[in-house]
């Protein structure tokens, strides 16, 4: 009888231990800094495939309307983690005392950005852009602005840099002939490429100075991080797995296409447009370069010190050593 009782107690205890993470899953409020962009799929991937649950996390995933607005939710503590924020904005906010810390890299370089022209344009590549042509970007100090500057410098272009707003505003202005080029991010507007309405003239891979430099980051509220260090570590592990799942699962790509009402043909090559090797969560690279760019673009008033840069990055949720 005592053996039976022991077995029952052990079974009950085991069940309780196994069930504990599910019952007491730690909540994490995640905000994707924008929507549709391929890397923003990873939190959904982790949430919808039981990966967060496996790590004892219950994550809510919403999306913001761009870097600054999304980062505001982190520094005010209304969300815990922002996924895919532009690093310039993060450095800028941190320099002004915002309680934020970088947990990892979202992408290094800007291979997923591309520039296009109307299909009937005589421009074939970046090198055909002359002083009378506009090389466009979203807004001053943005990732696209950086990429455009670096592309212009790398290729010695004479073209004017013109701010045109987001991909949809850019498309309107490019298609109506107000500006010579448009910018977008894969897989957005791929349907127009497929239907030969627009033609790609180059990508962010040509921004040589940004290759290997972390451009978008995963950022957490530092107060939340200090109180939930273990949760943050588990969250990051789950995100690593979620990211791997996105890259390796055709089903997830179909879900991604369905989520944003994209054509599956346009997203199935997302892994090529945004190569996995540049989206690994570690390393967070080239912050010294970003520091200088931030100063040049008036995002900060003086360079962050080595100590500040060191304090800023908590890789995978771990305190910097």
């Amino acid at each position, binding site marked *: 009888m005592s053996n039976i009782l022991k077995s029952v107690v052990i079974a009950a205890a085991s069940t309780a231990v196994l069930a504990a993470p599910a019952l007491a899953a730690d909540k994490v409020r995640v905000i994707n800094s924008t929507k549709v962009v391929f890397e923003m799929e990873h939190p959904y991937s982790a949430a919808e495939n039981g990966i967060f649950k496996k790590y004892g996390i219950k994550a809510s995933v919403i999306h913001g309307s761009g870097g*600054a607005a999304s980062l505001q939710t982190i*520094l005010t503590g209304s969300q815990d983690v922002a996924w895919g924020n532009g690093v310039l904005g993060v450095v800028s906010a941190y320099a002004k005392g915002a309680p934020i810390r970088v947990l990892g890299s979202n992408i290094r370089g800007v291979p997923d950005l591309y520039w296009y022209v109307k299909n009937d344009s005589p421009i074939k590549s970046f090198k055909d852009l002359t002083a009378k042509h506009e090389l466009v970007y979203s807004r001053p100090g943005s990732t696209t602005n950086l990429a455009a500057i670096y592309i212009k410098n790398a290729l010695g272009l004479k073209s004017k840099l013109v701010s*045109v707003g987001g991909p949809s505003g850019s498309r309107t202005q490019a298609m*109506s002939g*107000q500006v010579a080029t448009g910018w977008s991010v894969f897989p957005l507007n791929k349907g127009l490429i497929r239907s030969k309405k627009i033609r790609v003239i180059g990508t962010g891979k040509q921004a040589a100075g940004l290759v290997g430099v972390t451009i978008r980051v995963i950022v957490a509220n530092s107060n939340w991080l200090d109180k939930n260090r273990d949760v943050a570590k588990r969250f990051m592990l789950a995100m690593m797995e979620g990211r791997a799942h996105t890259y390796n699962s055709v089903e997830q790509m179909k879900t991604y296409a369905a989520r944003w009402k994209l054509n599956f043909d346009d997203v199935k090559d997302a892994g090529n447009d945004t190569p996995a090797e540049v989206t690994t969560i570690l390393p967070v690279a080239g912050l010294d370069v970003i520091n200088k760019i931030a100063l040049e673009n008036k995002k900060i008033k003086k360079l962050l010190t080595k100590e500040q840069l060191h304090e800023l990055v908590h890789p995978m949720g771990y305190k910097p050593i």
Partner: protein
Amino acid sequence: MAKLHKMPIVVGLFGLIAAAMLLEFSVDAGWVMQLVVPRPSDTILAFPDVQADMDLFGNFFVTLGMTAGATLLALMIGVPFGYFLWRNTKYGVAYEGWLAAAFAAPTVLLYPLFLVIFGRSHATLIAMGFIPGAIPIIIQTRQGLLGVSRTLLNVGRSFNVTDRDLFWKIQLPSAVPTIFTGIRIGVMYTLVNIVAIEYLIDFGGLGRIVSEMYFRFDTPGTYASIIAVVLVSVFFYWGFGRIEKWLRPV
């Protein structure tokens, strides 16, 4: 207390200063996050920096000019159209509902269309400012003329004045307060639309500075440029108040 009622500007300023001091204290005490709302003193100190960096003063006049241009256009079209709708009752009845619906619509969202039509230029700003400005002027002009007291009209007719004199000497002066209500509403919506478009397309005056400062997380700079927008609004509110008094001194 009775004396205070005679000094509305002083009372208003006193309230403003009290609110600013309360905010200053709240930020210092940590009740309000400084990164979201700066100390009023920091906002004031940010003006020279924003001026040096982004020419706040010059851009103040850009936004002021765009708003003035759009408002002038709205007046030139809105008042005659309102008069037309008053004179032609059928049209007035037919279009009033449509105008009210158009006024309630967020026309600012149409900016991509205007970018295609007018390009990335000041013309887009003026056109986008004109629409929300003209509609209340049209509606209020018609309402103002409809609302002229019958007694006043009868008095005029008893003096055998011509229709022309009746309009210029009785109907229009009587409708002025209502028309100016429309103008004040219109100019505020015009300003809001123009600043919003400046912010969205990163072009033009103060809206572009607000956007730039916001994206730099320069909160005092953001608020300093917002105050400049408020000053544009105050200028128009004050200016149209003066014109109204001039047109209808009693």
